[in-house]
């Protein structure tokens, strides 16, 4: 790893950690930085997952009080089971994907994640506002929810950017009402899925360790800094910044194909 690359990766991971602690979307910076530093795309994705995982785990701690209700845990149990299976499948799928095929998907994946970031929140709000009387859903409807979560977690194992927004939308569709509980379970499920993907990548030796260690350190520094500034920053401005970075990165990778 050349010194300019080390510096680029550390700065990118710091910014990514900061963004993730404020609005999410750190992957839009960390993953392209790994590509710019010459990491092959699949290894870049695996390394990115590991670099940003400690940050997600840290935010689970922040939601302790929201995670105390055992009834919600019982309702969520099937989702945890499919999350483990799905993220394992997604990570293995990534490892079996030819590097060139994945590289061709990168601009589309970035574009998709940017669109999720831009419109996902609006869809969730819309569903919550229009929700009719909550009715008792059939078992098959629960299977339907599990199937959707399975797809989301396959996506987390495979790429994952913007998946948190997908889960919030899914919880809204399921009729969950408390936004704090929704955020808490989104964070726990995302950590669980990314954790499973991370172990899969480590076992398959897909991680480039010097870069990973450097980025974990950067992300932790950025995460603390981000949390410190989070109260002072306008969330909206940060969100626009994330959308602009996502759109810029997608445009760049479309252009450079």
């Amino acid at each position: 790893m050349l010194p300019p690359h080390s510096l680029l990766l550390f700065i990118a991971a710091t910014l990514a950690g900061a963004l993730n602690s404020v609005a999410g979307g750190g992957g839009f910076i960390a993953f392209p930085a790994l590509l710019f530093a010459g990491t092959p795309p699949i290894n870049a994705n695996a390394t990115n997952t590991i670099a940003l995982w400690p940050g997600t785990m840290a935010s689970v701690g922040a939601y302790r009080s929201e995670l105390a209700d055992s009834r919600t845990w019982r309702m969520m149990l099937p989702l945890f089971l499919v999350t483990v299976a799905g993220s394992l499948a997604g990570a293995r799928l990534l490892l079996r994907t030819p590097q060139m095929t994945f590289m061709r998907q990168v601009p589309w994946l970035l574009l998709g994640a940017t669109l999720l970031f831009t419109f996902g929140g609006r869809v969730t709000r819309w569903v919550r506002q229009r929700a009719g009387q909550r009715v008792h859903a059939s078992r098959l409807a629960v299977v339907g929810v599990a199937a959707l979560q399975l797809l989301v977690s396959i996506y987390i194992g495979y790429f994952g950017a913007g998946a948190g927004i997908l889960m919030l939308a899914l919880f809204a569709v399921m009729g969950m009402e408390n936004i704090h509980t929704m955020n808490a379970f989104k964070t726990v499920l995302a950590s669980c899925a990314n954790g499973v993907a991370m172990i899969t990548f480590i076992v398959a030796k897909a991680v480039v360790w010097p870069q990973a260690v450097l980025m974990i350190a950067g992300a932790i520094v950025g995460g603390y800094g981000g949390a410190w500034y989070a109260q002072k920053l306008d969330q909206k401005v940060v969100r626009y910044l994330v959308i602009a970075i996502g759109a810029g990165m997608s445009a760049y990778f479309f252009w450079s194909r």
Partner: protein
Amino acid sequence: MPLTTTIGYVAGTLTTVSFLPQLIKTWRCKSAKEISWVMLLAFALGVTLWLVYGIFLGSAPIIVANTATLALVVLILVLKVYYSFHGKPEN
């Protein structure tokens, strides 16, 4: 573009577009009762596996067509789940 790839894209476009009328109908009627759960779930799983197969092969027509089909099937599945948990939405 080679003939094989062209046929792949035409096939993919047709099978994908065929799901659009169902999505529009489900959205307009605000009901997905008439769609079978088993059919929908099996179809979603089938399309997902097609997508995985396409990624393994690195075949663009299979990847593109099945990603688009999966997106439409997922939207129908989301509507069906939504109407199962909420009944009809308030207008």
